[in-house]
């Protein structure tokens, strides 16, 4: 019987969302445990990974897992002021902000990433969150990183962008800047800082995507502009910078248009 129904799923090519949840040990994982103890049911799609604190989840972990084919990712932490490590989840919130910015740049619906605070006593809430989230992802459909090369390239670029010094340093300091002011004790305007991170995310993403695309095959500025839907003058500025940092090289000009190819670091990748 069960065998039969499985075959049916396969033959109809019925798609099942693949959802990964990263949960902090102290609250949300405990909440998921209590959910089990209390027998609150939820859809089977989610696979949970335990970390000590939600603050451990770097954007790289999330974006790399999206690139590998996840349709949705849930991050669970403690409520504010309940984090086992005091300020951990405040940083989590900022990091999730960056992840969402980069997902947006990559054209991935940011609803695919969900941050939830679930306490050790909120077993029922956990089942609700997972049920709702699974339904939401079901509605959004597959994320396509596994089937569409362009989607994959973009998520990969988002991942690379998240690993740049500028974004990591900015977002790493974001919470402290907003809560304690800058090194001169001045208060920092959250909107202004948000704007700076927005712009930096876009620039870093575009540069990373140029590298990603030019890794697959050498491309001209015009081609890159078209594929990425970015004005050519901006592409050119990125390229100048990337060349200065020896990340990209000009290749055999075809006629008059130069094409660019990403320099493979260490020959691997």
């Amino acid at each position: 019987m069960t065998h039969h129904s499985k075959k049916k799923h396969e033959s109809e090519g019925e798609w099942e969302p693949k959802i990964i949840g990263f949960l902090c040990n102290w609250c949300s994982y405990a909440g998921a445990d209590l959910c089990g103890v209390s027998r609150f049911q939820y859809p089977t799609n989610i696979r949970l990974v335990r970390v000590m604190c939600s603050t451990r989840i770097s954007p790289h972990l999330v974006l790399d897992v999206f690139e590998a084919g996840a349709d949705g990712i849930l991050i669970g932490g403690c409520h504010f002021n309940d984090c086992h490590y005091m300020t951990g989840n405040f940083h989590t919130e900022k990091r999730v902000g960056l992840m969402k910015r980069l997902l947006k740049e990559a054209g991935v619906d940011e609803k695919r990433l969900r941050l939830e605070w679930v306490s050790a006593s909120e077993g029922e809430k956990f089942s609700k969150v997972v049920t709702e989230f699974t339904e939401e992802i079901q509605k959004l459909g597959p994320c396509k990183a596994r089937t569409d090369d362009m989607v994959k390239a973009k998520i990969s670029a988002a991942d690379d962008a998240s690993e740049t010094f500028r974004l990591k340093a900015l977002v790493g300091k974001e919470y402290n800047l907003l809560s304690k002011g800058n090194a001169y004790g001045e208060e920092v305007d959250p909107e202004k800082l948000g704007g700076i991170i927005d712009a930096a995310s876009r620039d870093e993403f575009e540069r990373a995507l140029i590298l990603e695309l030019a890794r697959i095959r050498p491309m001209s500025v015009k081609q890159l502009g078209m594929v990425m839907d970015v004005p050519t003058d901006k592409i050119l500025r990125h390229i100048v910078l990337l060349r200065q940092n020896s990340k990209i090289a000009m290749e055999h000009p075809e006629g008059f248009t130069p094409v660019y190819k990403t320099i493979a670091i260490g020959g691997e990748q």
Partner: protein
Amino acid sequence: MTDEANGEKKSPRIGVFICHCGSNIGGFVDVKAVTEYAATLPDVAYATDNLYTCAEDGLNNIKESIKEHNLDRVIVSSCTPRTHAPLFQRTCEAAGLNKYMFTFVNIREHCSWVHMKDRERATQKAKDLVRMGVARARFLEPQEETKIDVTQAALVVGGGVSGMTAALSLANMGFPVHLVEKDNELGGFVRNLHGLMNTKKSAGETIEPLIDKVNAQKNITQHLNSRVATVEGFIGNYDVTIGGDDAEPKEVKVGTIIVATGAVPLVPEGLFGYKEHPNVVTATEFEELCKKKDIPKLKNVAFIQCVGSRGQKVSYCSRICCNVAIKTAINIAENRDNMLGVTEEKPAEAGGQAVEEPAADMKAEEGTERRRRRRGRGRREGEDAVEEGAAPSSGVEITVFNRDVMAYGVEHELEFNKAREKRVKFIRYVPDNLPKVTMKDGNLEVGYFHETLKMERSMPVDMVILSTPLVSQPDASTLSQLLKVPLGQDGFFQEAHVKLRPVDFATDGVFVCGTCRGPADIAEAASQAAAAASRAAIPLANGFVQAEALTSRVDETKCTGCGTCVEVCPYGALRKNEEGISEVIAAACKGCGCCGATCPEGAITMTHYTDQQLLAEAKAALEEG
């Protein structure tokens, strides 16, 4: 080792132990299929299933398999690491395997219990989870733990029976104890009580000697009118500030903490005519009236049980109320301590009672006989056994309206029988048809539906005693947040494991006992307190705890000294060395991973939670299994 020395990396040999947990997992997941699947995964040298992996033979199986199959990594796929990881890690260690070579896969709380209606998908998920565990296990590395010194003193919060008992046990072991009580005196809720069940002693007589002992114990520092204001640190090293109502805040250093803050009775606002009609009181208020000898003349007393509990305002059964009602009913019937004061006015009856006493003794055999008869008929009809008109010796009619009487255990059942011998009536009601407390022509009356006769009836009463449940302290969440320990769904403090760790919190170093953990009588509260004290004494007696090797590690070749990590670490566990490069103070690092996720140069690795391990685990979920 030698293989590695030869430049060849030994491929891992993973053992996978999949637990049925009786039918908890086995009932909803095809454990055999998962085990067969596990055996096919890369680097898995051995896979088996156990009925109970955490039982003696399950643990022995792990130990033997490690030796027999030369395993260098172990996966247990069962319940939750939050309760069972230490057990399995110790098992690995006993077989000579570093405990960091162990991986937990949760297929009970996170699978079988939450997918009880879809065996096929639950089984598929369990396979995926095992595959994820195997992927993680392949990247595990052995770690060494550091020892952390423990401050050999304890903090006990709450000065009721539990708190005092716990504090005394620890103090008697020779450890200094700080006992914090928010009220201006010790004793807790028992101070409100009159007589106690299963003892002829009054509440005062019971609690005073305990208070005296606490006062006499030099190792105990009492902080009355005080509360815990702040808590910093971790097991072995807590810095606590105790805020007094009018005293300067005091700072104390302790190694372990016991929570014993008790509970309060529910105020039955809007239920059964409470605060609406005179002489409708809670069981607690009745105790206070007894103490003050301020009880009106009683001829008819009605108890209503489960007021607000078992699905009305709170979901649970408050455990103590049936026995409290039985105790109080017997006390009234026996006119204990002349509590009714009524008989004094009627010397004739008082004399009559004195004569009746030995008579009752002589009738003991008859009593047993009657008990046997009643038991045969079952509780449902218990009330019918009381012949109409046969009033209790003191001339008071006592009726206990109940959903069912939870007189559990040896003593309580005997008391229950004793109450029935004293002609206390037990009348059942169902939640759909609650008794009604009304006023008729200036007289209090209880209307009820007689379940056996199937008809509405009513009786005049002088007093209605409402048995309301114990509920959590209104400010429990403050302490829960300060100590980072959870409250359960009903607002009581939640232990690490209902069965295996009943007085521990999941957070190391903090313990719980008494009614702040859920309703309990004094004997139960005191045993929990003794248990909590002995648990809390373990690290104190050892003088050290082994810190988990979950710390950050800085790769000095990658660190550029930007200082971001130093800024974000909540424990000041990172500092720059002379060369301006960041370094970790391992004893202070708690392994949260904030610095690791932050470092712009990717110079920080989290021990046991490396990117490589986490990504392998998560990505394995995305493969088709």
